[in-house]
């Protein structure tokens, strides 16, 4: 069985092209079925915002890629000529290694992101349920999933968050632990602030307040985020109340300064407070960070940590890469071993039959002529050797008659270690 991967990804195609190939979950199995009609005996399709790929296996792959090219052009409603520069094809060992790398998130846009494994599992599950996968592909995919799990547990590839919002949430958790008992305030109605506040809401924050100079805008944003609107005039009171503050106003001066914060900290009995200042110019005086129990992070600080995390992730990716290649190669060796299995079984069966027949004949002769035991045993050994070698010797003579030293000769010399014997 030969493996094939065919498709396009963020590495080969821009988003303008990738977005044309979005396949709904419900349609994945029917797409995989189209791939089967294109020549694959087993197949499944994965479609994410960063890739659309056909994975498959077949005895022969001639013409399959061309047929899949047409299938993809149909999905994207585009000309094959437009697609060609963005398509890739992996066969055999390369296909298996690619599958393992994708599952382990080593081929992702953000290396180490955990979503791809879930997306692969869903796609594979749909296709397997529909009966379009098969034993060879099932073995490969399941081994790829197991390897991806090992990568996540044995390396730190998923340990470091790399987006600014995720870094902010992680820092908040480092200060407060469980965020479900904590409240937050979003000061300003900027897009970035809204995004950070939404992350906080998604993290299970207990209560969110939205303050803005325009109370109407605060009300609108609060309604979208499920928070409570407040006027910016109430800032001091709000700071006494909440634990996390996201600032993203367009003000060109510090809204929160040390003298204000001294009063605030006293009124909040010095409970810790975390400022996520994503405004430029900054809304929070950076000197506040020197105050006890006050933690101030601006965009550069968050970016700095995100960059460090990205670097850490890259170094872990090298460890993960080695593990993935080792596991993929082991799987390929097992696969090769399994390919020889039917031949091994047939050879064993054949020799056992020869042995049984010759043994039976020798036993009968021994009963009739027990005095010739030595001769019968010797003849038994000769016959067994001759019959076992017969097929191979006939083939060797046939190939020799063609006047050249064939691959069979080489194989037999290697198997029986004949190279140090006479070649004449």
């Amino acid at each position: 069985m030969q493996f094939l991967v065919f498709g396009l990804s963020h590495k080969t195609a821009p988003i303008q092209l990738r977005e044309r190939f979005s396949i709904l979950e419900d349609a994945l199995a029917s797409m995989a079925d189209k791939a089967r009609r294109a020549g694959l005996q087993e197949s499944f399709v994965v479609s994410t915002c960063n890739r659309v790929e056909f994975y498959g296996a077949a005895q022969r792959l001639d013409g399959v890629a061309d047929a899949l090219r047409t299938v993809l052009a149909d999905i994207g409603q585009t000309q094959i000529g437009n697609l060609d520069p963005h398509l890739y094809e992996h066969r055999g060992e390369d296909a298996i290694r690619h599958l393992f790398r994708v599952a382990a998130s080593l081929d992702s846009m953000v290396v180490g992101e955990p979503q791809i494994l879930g997306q692969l599992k869903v796609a594979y599950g749909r296709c397997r349920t529909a009966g379009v996968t098969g034993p060879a592909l099932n073995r490969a995919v399941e081994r790829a999933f197991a390897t991806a799990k090992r990568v996540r547990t044995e390396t730190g590839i998923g340990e470091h968050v790399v987006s600014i919002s995720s870094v902010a949430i992680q820092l908040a958790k480092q200060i407060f632990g469980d965020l479900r008992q904590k409240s937050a305030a979003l000061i300003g109605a900027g897009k970035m602030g809204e995004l950070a506040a939404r992350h906080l809401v998604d993290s299970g924050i207990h209560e969110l307040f939205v303050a803005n100079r325009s109370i109407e805008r605060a009300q609108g944003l609060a309604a979208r985020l499920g928070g409570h609107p407040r006027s910016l005039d109430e800032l001091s009171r709000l700071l006494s109340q909440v634990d996390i503050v996201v600032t993203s106003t367009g003000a060109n001066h510090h809204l929160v300064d040390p003298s204000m914060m001294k009063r605030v900290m006293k009124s909040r009995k010095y409970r810790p407070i975390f400022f996520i200042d994503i405004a430029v110019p900054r809304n929070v005086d950076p000197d506040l960070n020197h105050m006890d129990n006050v933690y101030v992070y601006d965009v550069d600080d968050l970016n700095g940590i995100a960059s460090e995390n990205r670097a850490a992730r890259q170094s872990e990716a090298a460890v993960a890469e080695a593990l993935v290649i080792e596991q993929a190669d082991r799987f390929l060796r097992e696969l090769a071993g399994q390919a020889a299995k039917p031949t091994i079984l047939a050879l064993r069966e054949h020799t056992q039959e020869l042995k049984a027949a010759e043994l039976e004949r020798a036993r009968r002769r021994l009963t009739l002529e027990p005095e010739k035991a030595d001769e019968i045993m010797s003849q038994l050994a000769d016959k067994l050797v001759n019959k076992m070698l017969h097929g191979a010797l006939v083939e060797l003579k046939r190939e020799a008659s063609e006047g050249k030293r064939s691959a069979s000769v080489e194989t037999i010399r290697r198997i029986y270690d004949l190279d140090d014997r006479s070649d004449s």
Partner: protein
Amino acid sequence: MQVLLTIGIAAYAITTLWYLLDLFRPNGQESPLPVRFYMLASGYWLIAFPYGAYSYALCTGIRPWLIASAWSLGVIYLYLARRYEIRALGSSVAALSAILSTFALLVSTTETSLFTGPLADWVLWIHIALAFIGVTAFSLAAAVSTIYLSVSGRLKRKKVIPKTLPPLETLDRLALRAVSIGFAFYTVALLLGTAQAVRQGTGEVKLAYVFAAISWVIYGVVLQARMTAGWRGRKAAFLTIIGLISALVVVGLYAVGLT
């Protein structure tokens, strides 16, 4: 007994290093090995202690209490580590266990039993027992505060924080509980000690008394300021550590017989 103590101290020292290495492993993942080794080091006393008991009737001097304190510190930590994400505490807890065990090693081998005197020695026995429960709790609080300072410092300096370090609020809560418990025991211990000193009527103010009073005042300030003004954070953590140093000076002075 000296050999047994030395082995115990070495075990705690190795555990401390092991925890420290584990804390800063590059991929941020923890291995269970330091915890297992700490369990082994703490469990060691269960075997070693009976061997030492031939020359010391149970808990008749400060050496057995020092060993018990080092051991119970480990047990409390292991219990807490199951409930909270505080594996990172292991390094400082193991280091404190090593210090307490070292004091036990320094105790004079000619230390006399407290049970040889009249009934009043029972008061002294209870005084020592309560003081050591207090010191154990303060040790735990100081270990927690050390990690608090480390996490807080990294947050202030905008450094990446290893995943193994627990949240600040968890650490703050644990330190406060440990100080509260320790303070209660330590207060009664000091009252009994004072009563004993007055009863003996020497009128002498020993150096150990001064340090014991200093540590009691420090912890009193930490708790009072927390209750009235919500005082917490780095200052409270520093004071908790200074309070323990003062309390350990008292233990050290008794251990080497310099009271």
